[in-house]
């Protein structure tokens, strides 16, 4: 007896084999009761599946299309402002990084020289509440947080851990 044509038995039962393959499977089936039984079961299963395919729930199609239209509009209008407003959180992060640099600089114990750079550092150091609110800044994402960035100094100092 030839090797069982496993994967082809289902395709044979489904009637989707080409002529040559179908003839080869039929030659095998003539000698193999186990494969004949499998094909018979597959046919019953396919008939049951076709006859009892459950219908999906009813949908209000005008509403479906309205939702789709709203989605398209929302995506079209959301795409352009986010592109140019995206650098703002980056600016906040840069400010935090600069403030950290000041802290590290001061921690070294070297008094700042009275030059333009030190004036700039002093200015940054005066805004040290950024460091106090570092946890909040760290979690800021995009534009929906723009108001938070603007009002950082109003945040109550919430030190965790």
């Amino acid at each position, binding site marked *: 007896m030839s090797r069982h044509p496993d*994967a082809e038995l*289902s395709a044979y039962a489904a009637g989707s084999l080409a002529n040559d393959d179908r003839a080869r499977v039929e030659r095998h089936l003539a000698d193999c009761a186990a494969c004949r039984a499998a094909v018979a079961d597959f046919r019953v299963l396919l008939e049951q599946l076709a006859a009892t395919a459950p219908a999906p729930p009813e949908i209000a199609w005008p509403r479906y299309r309205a*939702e789709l239209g709203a989605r398209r509009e929302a995506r079209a209008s959301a795409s352009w402002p986010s592109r140019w407003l995206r650098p703002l959180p980056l600016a906040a992060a840069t400010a935090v990084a600069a403030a950290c640099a000041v802290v590290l600089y001061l921690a070294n114990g070297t008094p700042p020289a009275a030059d333009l750079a030190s004036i700039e550092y002093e200015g940054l150091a005066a805004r040290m509440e950024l460091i106090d609110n570092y946890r909040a800044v760290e979690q800021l994402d995009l534009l929906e947080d723009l108001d938070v960035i603007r009002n950082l100094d109003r945040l109550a100092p919430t030190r965790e851990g």
Partner: protein
Amino acid sequence: METSDEALCQRVAGHDESAFDLLVERYQQRAFRLAWSILRDTEEARDLSQEAFMRLWAAAGSFRGHARFSTWFYRLLVNLCLDHRRKHRWWHQVFSREERADREQESPLERHAGPATDPTETIGRERALASVWDAAQRLSPQQRAVLVLHVQEEMAMSDVAAVMGCAEATARVHLHRALTTLRATLGKKEER
């Protein structure tokens, strides 16, 4: 004469809204039914079939006309559904387990098998038929998708393979594994 899907898709590539609306009307029910048959969740099916139309609007230009529009669009939709299942597999597994637990909490009357000569034989047969698709819910998403496309959408295996983005032999293997699993599952049920 009715404009072909392929011609409409070319017009959608040029952002023709009326062509898009026509394609949506033609395919909304088929898209939702296919997504629902794979996912078995109304909200997910609604969301992902709409997302497929969004992708159609954005990527109609990539339809080259080598296949039928329906095959190209179904592929887009089936990929979305399978990706979604892959991403939410852990959640779905937990949910399915809860669903199975709910089903197992049947009343004592339902738990005990009825007499062999059940007068409501018809009801029993209908239950058995319904359980074929219940059992199909436990197949892998790929196997279920192949089954749905071939049995429910009545697609030839060559088209099923095109939608699934695989060789026809691979699609046949998915079908065979699906039927073998169903045969084993339902056979075990009948033995009880």
